[in-house]
Structure formats: C-alpha cells, structure tokens
C-alpha cells in the first residue's frame, strides 16, 4: 500500500505545470487543460468567463498560431527558428519573416500569455509572497504594498487591450511593465512571473465596465506558491532556450 501512496506523491509533485511545454518544440501547440476546474476561481473570476476565455479565446490563439507556424515551416523547411519552441520564437519575433510575423506575434503571444495567466492563478489564492521572492519585491519596490499599488495603478491606466506583468530581467531584477494587445514580455528579453489580463473579455461578463472591481478581485486569485516555481522554471530553461 505504501508504494501506491509514494507513487501518487511523486506523481503529484512532478505533475507537469501548464507552461512546461512552452519551451519545447511541438509540431502543433495543444491547448493545455487548466490546473483547476472552471468554477474554481469563483467568486473572483466567474465560471462562464473562465470557460469562454479558455475554450474560446485561448484555443483560437493556439489554432491560429499552428496555422501560421505550419505555413512558415512549409515555406522555409530549413529555418531553425521555425522549428524552435514558441517561447524562443517570441524572443526572436523580429526574425520571423514578415509574412507571418504579425500573426505569430498576436496569436503566439496570445497563446503563451494566457498560459502564464492561468498558471499564476489558483483557488485559495491571494495573500502575499514569502521567502526570496518577497525579498526581491521589497528590494525592487520598497514593500509588497507599494508593489501592489504600482501594479494596480498600471492595470487601471492601461488604454485599450493588453496585460500588466511582473517580470524578471536577466540580471535578476524585478520590473512591472505592460504590453499592448498580445505582445509578450519575452520579446523584450524579460521573463514573466505574474500577469493580469486587461482585455475586456477577461472581465466583462461579470464586471462590465468596472475594471477596478476586476483587478481587485483578481488579487484574490494570485497564486504566490506558483510564482516562485515559474521563476525557477525560467532560470532552468534559460540555458536550453
């Protein structure tokens, strides 16, 4: 009996996070399952929104990325970049041929951005970070409260569609930055640790025009246990990218 429990323990501890496939080449990107049920983020993010957001928007970004990648690979069978991971492609987005650059920036960016979004939320989220990450936040922003205020302010002020990110740069410094539409911080040489989706589709069904209410709710879903894991993942992946 003990071996069964050990096996379960090992399986749970080693179960792949939804972002791990992003740094590996795939013939076709597959929409990852959410790490929780569609209603798990209630009452902060409603089930109807999570469903359409994942199965509608996120899936479409994946499908459109696959279409663009397939065309590019067929047109240029020798391009090493075309046969890299989607993360690598976004990091080198300006090297993607013009014919597919916009489609891959928008759809590949959309695919990856949403994986990070889902990955850093969880039921029973909220609270604040601890350990090394908390120390980094204090160093970069003065305090967790100051970080939260700065992040919230950026999210409130963003014009149009986009995201607000907490990222780590190659020197290990933390920055808050925003991207428009589906642009990815990976294209700016940054590694995303936490993100809030500010496209209206992320909140309109529940909050309508009240973006501030959505941002406030979203803080309750932030998974401070997962953020350091994502951070370590980028550290480990960096060399193989």
């Amino acid at each position, binding site marked *: 009996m003990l071996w069964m429990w050990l096996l379960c323990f090992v399986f749970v501890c080693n179960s792949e996070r939804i972002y791990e496939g992003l740094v590996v080449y795939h013939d076709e990107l597959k929409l990852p399952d959410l790490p929780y049920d569609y209603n798990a983020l209630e009452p902060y993010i409603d089930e109807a929104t999570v469903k359409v957001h994942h199965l509608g928007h996120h899936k479409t970004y994946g499908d459109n990325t696959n279409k663009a990648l397939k065309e590019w690979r067929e047109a240029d069978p020798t391009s090493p970049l075309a046969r890299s991971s989607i993360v690598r492609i976004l990091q080198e987005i300006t090297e993607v041929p013009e014919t597919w650059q916009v489609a891959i920036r*928008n759809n590949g960016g959309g695919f990856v951005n949403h994986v990070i979004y889902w990955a850093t939320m969880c039921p029973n989220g909220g609270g604040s970070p601890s350990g090394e990450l908390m120390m980094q936040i204090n160093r970069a922003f003065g305090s967790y409260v100051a970080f939260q205020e700065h992040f919230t302010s950026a999210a409130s002020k963003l014009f*149009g569609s*986009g995201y607000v990110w907490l990222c780590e740069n190659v020197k290990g410094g933390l920055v808050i930055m925003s991207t428009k*539409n589906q642009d990815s911080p990976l294209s700016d040489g940054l590694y995303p640790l936490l993100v809030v989706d500010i496209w209206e*589709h992320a909140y*309109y069904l529940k909050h309508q*025009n009240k973006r501030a209410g959505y941002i406030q709710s979203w803080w309750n879903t932030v998974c401070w246990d997962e953020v350091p894991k994502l951070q370590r993942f980028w550290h480990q992946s960096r060399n193989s990218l």
Partner: protein
Amino acid sequence: MSVVSSLVRLARAAPFAARFKHTLPPLPYAYNALEPVISREIMEIHHTKHHAAYVNNLNVAEDQLKDYVERGDVNSMIAVQNAVKFNGGGHINHSIFWNNLTPLGEGQPKGDLLAAIQRDFGSFDTLKTQLASKTVAIQGSGWGWLGYNKERGKLDLAVCSNQDPLQATTGLIPLLGIDVWEHAYYLQYKNVRGDYVKAIWNIVNWKDVSARYDAAIKG
C-alpha cells in the same frame, strides 16, 4: 470704447475662462431599440458608462492641459496628449456611432452614396465583405471605418486602434464606423466578433451615412 467691445476684448484675453465642457449626447432612440442586433443591456452600459467616461475624462484632460499651458509646462502638455487623444477620440467615435445606427435599418444605401460605393468598390456587397473582414481582423480594441478621402475624391476603408479618431490620424472623413472594442458586443456575442459585425448591417443608418458623405464632398 463701448461696454460690448470691452467685454469682447476681455473674453478674447481669457479664452479658457468660460471654457466649453463636453457633454454626453443623448441616444437618438431607446436603449432597447436596436434589439435583437444589439441588446438593451449593452447599449445602456456602452452609452451611460463607456461613452460617459470618455466625456468626463476628456474634460479632465482638457482642464489639465489648460493648466499646463498657462504654467508653460511643455513636458506635461506633451504627456497629457495621450489622454486627450484617447478620451477625445472615444467621444468623437461614439458620437458618430450612435447616429450611424438606427432601429429602422433600410438594408442598403441609395443615391449618390450608392453610386460612389459602386464606383470605388464595384458593388455594395464587396464593400460589406471588405469592411467586415478588415474590422473583424483588428487586433485588440479598435474601429473599422468607411471614410471619404478628400484628396483623392473617393471612398476608402481604414481601421484604427483603440480610440484613435479616423480624421485626425488618417485624414479620412468618417462616414460609418463599427466599434469592435469587446464592450460593444461581448455580453451578447462573447468571442464571436464575426457574428456581431455580420448582424450590424441590419441597423446601419444609411440616411446618416449619406448625409455625412454629402457634407464631405461639399466641405
């Protein structure tokens, strides 16, 4: 010197003293009038919340701009331009949009406008297909437009991001705009923007679009 001319001189010397404040224009129809194409709920929020916010924030941005101009703070004058463009554009665009729509959609344009459409696009159906396609393809938030190119004397299509106003950013005179910010359709159409853009043709106010075209070619 007469009292009147003194007052005129004073008014000219203090141009911002009785500054014009933008106000939310009323809809030319009831909130539920565009159903089933656009729901009452969307119309009400779109008008009383989104458009109203653009109007209020435009007034705030203009007050700030006035302040910076008076203080000679050029850096701040430049910095506030984004807010003026965004909120001013939002106010312009939505003011056109409400009049571009009508519960009494006639289905297609007539007269001079129809002739111009056939001349510049081949047919009304081609215009619809091209404008719909460009509009649905907009990344993020923005507007699809049928506009008039005064320099070339022809109709043209354009898309604008966010609330960038068509005329100020492209020179085209706006005739018909389709708002594809998600707030314009999400509560009813969710992620299927194409269905919304397909349906909106049923409520286009071609009389309004024609009137704008007539004014554009004369002006």
